[in-house]
Every structure is written in C-alpha cells, then in structure tokens.
C-alpha cells in the first residue's frame, strides 16, 4: 500500500492552471525534495494533498485512504509568511496546537500534552524559549517552532513548505538532522525546496515540477541535467551550479 498516491491531479484557480495531470506515488519512507521554478505549483501540490485547495480532477490517497480518514497521520509545516507573528501567543502555545487534532472538540490540552510539547521543543532546541512571544523570535527560531508543532502532531507523513527558506546555516543543519531522524524512524518527509545545490546531499527521492510532473525518482537517477533543463527551461547559472554539485558529489556546507 503506497504511503502517498497522487493520481492525475489537476488544480486550477484564478483562471490559471497550477498543476496539470500530476501523477506520483511514494511507496517507501524517505526524504523527498520537491523542486521547480517560481509558480511551478510546488506549494499548490502540498496544499492539494492536504485538501487546502480544490482539486479539479484526480485524487489523492494517503496510506490508501482519503485524507479525511488519515488526517491524524499527516503533519504540516506551512510557509513562515502565512502567519501573523504579532499574534499574542508564545512558543509553547504554538507547539501545543499540534496536539489539537488528537484532542478533538472542546477539550483543553492537559499535563500530558504539555509534556509532549516540551519534548518536541527539546528536539528542536527551543526548550528555553517556550514562554517567548513568537514575534520576538529570529527567523530560524520561528521555523523551528513550526517544525516542533508538526512533530507534536505525531504523524507518519510530513509535508513541509520551504522549511529551509531564509534560515541561517546552523538552523538548516539542525532541521536537516531532525528530518533525517524522522526518516530513519520510518516516517516520510516531503519538502518543498528551493536550493538546488543541496538537493543531492539532502534528499533520497526528488520530484521535479513545473505545473506538470517533469520527473520523479531516486535523486541519483531523476536529478539530471536534462531533467533540470526541462524543469527550469534554460536558466543556465542555476543549472551549472546544480550540475557541478551533482557531478562532483560535493558535500555542501
């Protein structure tokens, strides 16, 4: 039974085609990178899987079932810009929100939820900042708060929208090691990623998207010059850098 089955999905809104006949299956737990140019539909794909945007045709199945039956097994890290960081909540409050799915209606988070949330904060190294209002955090800390919230969801499939965007190098490697730990525990992590140089080093499996699915598969076979060319359509400087990194198999910093 596949972990994720995106079957012929087409998404269109505001009279624009965002995704067209995307057909993609994930069978094994792994770390997946989704890459493509701006406007390629990468965020839209994540949102379509989560039911946040209407699907015009096609279907999505998670662990063989429709999303609404498996929501508790799916964790989400949205883009950082999607939230008003001046909102009067602190870090612990945000992470506790990850537990709401299992709590259900009307119930408040109790001791058990609070302890679990603190454990998640520990995993991302933010334990000491639990009472800080979220607007007072740095970009990297905000990203890690979102990650801790997703961890608190105790999911088996994680969908993350640009978790490495605008974070410092230390945060990036901290987040990467958490994602690798998740993968090693048998979870699947799908990441929308923008930095081509790091793809060969970070991801086992890659998806190249530009409204249509250009290629998908293990990084070694799918992340090729010609696929990149088809996806990005001739922006040479990016291709050269990516091509170089791929050929040299350099460890990226």
């Amino acid at each position, binding site marked *: 039974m596949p972990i994720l089955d995106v079957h012929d999905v087409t998404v269109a809104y505001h009279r624009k085609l965002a995704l067209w006949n995307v057909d993609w299956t994930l069978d094994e737990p792994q770390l997946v990178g989704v890459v493509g140019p701006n406007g390629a539909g990468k965020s839209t794909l994540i949102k379509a899987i989560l039911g946040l945007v209407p699907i015009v045709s096609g279907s999505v199945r998670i662990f063989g079932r429709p999303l609404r039956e498996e929501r508790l097994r*799916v964790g989400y890290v949205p883009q950082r810009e999607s939230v008003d960081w001046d909102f009067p909540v602190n870090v612990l409050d945000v992470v506790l*929100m990850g537990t709401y799915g299992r709590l259900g209606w009307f119930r408040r988070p109790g001791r058990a939820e609070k302890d679990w949330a603190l454990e998640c904060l520990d995993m991302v190294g933010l334990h000491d900042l639990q009472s800080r209002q979220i607007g007072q955090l740095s970009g990297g800390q905000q990203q890690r708060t979102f990650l801790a919230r997703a961890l608190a969801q105790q999911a088996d499939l994680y969908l993350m929208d640009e978790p490495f965007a605008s974070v410092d190098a230390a945060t990036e490697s901290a987040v990467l090691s958490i994602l690798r730990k998740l993968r090693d525990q048998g979870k699947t992590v799908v990441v929308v990623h923008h930095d081509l140089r790091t793809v060969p080093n970070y991801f086992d499996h890659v998806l190249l998207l530009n409204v249509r699915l250009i290629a998908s598969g293990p990084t070694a076979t799918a992340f090729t010059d010609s696929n990149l060319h088809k996806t990005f359509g001739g922006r040479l400087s990016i291709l050269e850098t990516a091509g170089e990194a791929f050929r040299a198999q350099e460890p990226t910093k």
Partner: protein
Amino acid sequence: MDLWPDYNTRIVLCGGGLLGLGAGIIGCFALLKKRSLTGDALAHASLPGVCLAYLIIGERSLPGLLFGALVSGVVGISVIAVLRRWTRIKEDAAIGIVLSVFYGLGVVLLSVIQKPHPGRQPSGLNSFIQGKAAGMLLEDVYLLAGLVLVALVAVVALYKEFRLVCFDQAFAQAQGWPTARLDFSLMALVVLVVVIGLPTVGVLLMAALLIIPPVAARFWTERLGVMMFLAGLFGMASGMIGAVGSAVVKEVPTGPAIILAAVSFFVVSLVLAPRRGLLARTWRAVPRERPG
C-alpha cells in the same frame, strides 16, 4: 449628589457595562482576524434597515428595528463579498463603498421619516445614529446579559478552536477543523454584538467599541487570554462610564461618551504599558552607562 445611583442609572450602568464587556471580548477575535472594518461596515449598513423596519411596522418597536438592522447589515456585508468576488474592487474600497452608500441611504430615509406630519409622533430614530443609553429598559439589559452569556460560553467552550483558526487557518484546516464554520460563528458573534449595541452606542461608533478596548488591552500582554480579559474590562468600564455620563449630562450622546472613555484607556495604555508602551520603549532606547 446621592452616591448610590437611582433605578434608571443602575439600568444604564448594567446595560452599558454588559455591552462593553461583550464588545471587548468578541472584538479581540475581530481584531486578530483583521475584520474590524467589516464590523464598521455592518454598523453603518444597518441604518436603512432600521428606517425601513420603522416604516413597515409603523412604530418604534425595538426587536423589529433590530431585526431590520440585522437584515440590512448582512445585506451590506454580502454586497461587499459580491463586489470583491465579481469586480476588481479591493476589500478596503468595497467596504468604503458599502459603508457610505448604505449610510447615505439610511440618512435619506431618516429625513423622510422625520418630516413633520400632523398626528405623527417623533420617531426617536435619530438616536440610532449616535446612541442613547438613557431610556434603556430592564428588558434591554436582559437581552444584553443573554448576549454576553452566549458569547462567553462560546468563547470558553471553543477557545482553542477559535484561537487556532484566527492564528493559522491553513494549519487548522489541514488538521481537519471546519474552518469555514468556525469563522462564520465568530462573525456571527460580531454581528450579534454590533446589532444589539446599536441603540446604545449608535451606528457611527459601534465598531469603535469593538476595536479600541482590544487594541488597548494588546499593549499590556502577549497572551491572548489576558488580552481578552483586559479588553472585556476596558470595554465594560468604558460602557459604564459613557452610559452613565451621557445619562447625567443630557447634551452628550451616549456613543461618543462611551468611545471617549474607551479612548482614554487606549491613551493610558499606549503611553504607560510596560514593554509595549511609549514610555517603556523610549526608556529602552536611551543608551545607558555600562559598568566597567
């Protein structure tokens, strides 16, 4: 002057206080969802409904007038939504258009109603523009108490749900919450508070009672729960001070009196709040001698 207020003043105190309490608490959600102006549009758009209800019923029956206000206000909000969906008009312009057109229509209707006519009693509808607490009846206080109770129960029962939907709607939806229905419930509470507050605070300034106490409260805390408590407190105090003030000083209409009281809480908060207040920020910005 006798310190213990007489019956009428007690009624006005309770009514104004309850209204301010409800508006302060509900206003927090409207503020955080950036929907405060929608509350303003709703209030302004309700004026033609009040006038039409009067013309249809033939007399000043409060439930009838409030129902007219509700219908008219909701129509106004729907027009905003239609304008946004079907034209290129942006939200702020759409709100401005509906607010002014409906209000203008209401004023015209009001002048038609006010035209002196032999045998017709003065309608007393003018008080809907700027509010009038004096003349509030015990039934009105019960109505307000009922409203505040409903609002408080909803907020307490659904606190985590409302807070989640206000903070991160996408995440809430992904988690499986019915965000559209939760959103609608919040807006329904806003509509309820606005419509029931119209006779007291008036069409022009009702939205301000939804905005100013939460804004003032925000200065003092980084926790939503505390913010809602303080907003309720500021709202209640403003309601009481304004309502009684305008009942005692007949020339001052109630709406402006309540809002002026609310504004003074705001100014005090703006200046004096620790951390977020002006004085605190200036203090932090001044370079100080470092030891050694």
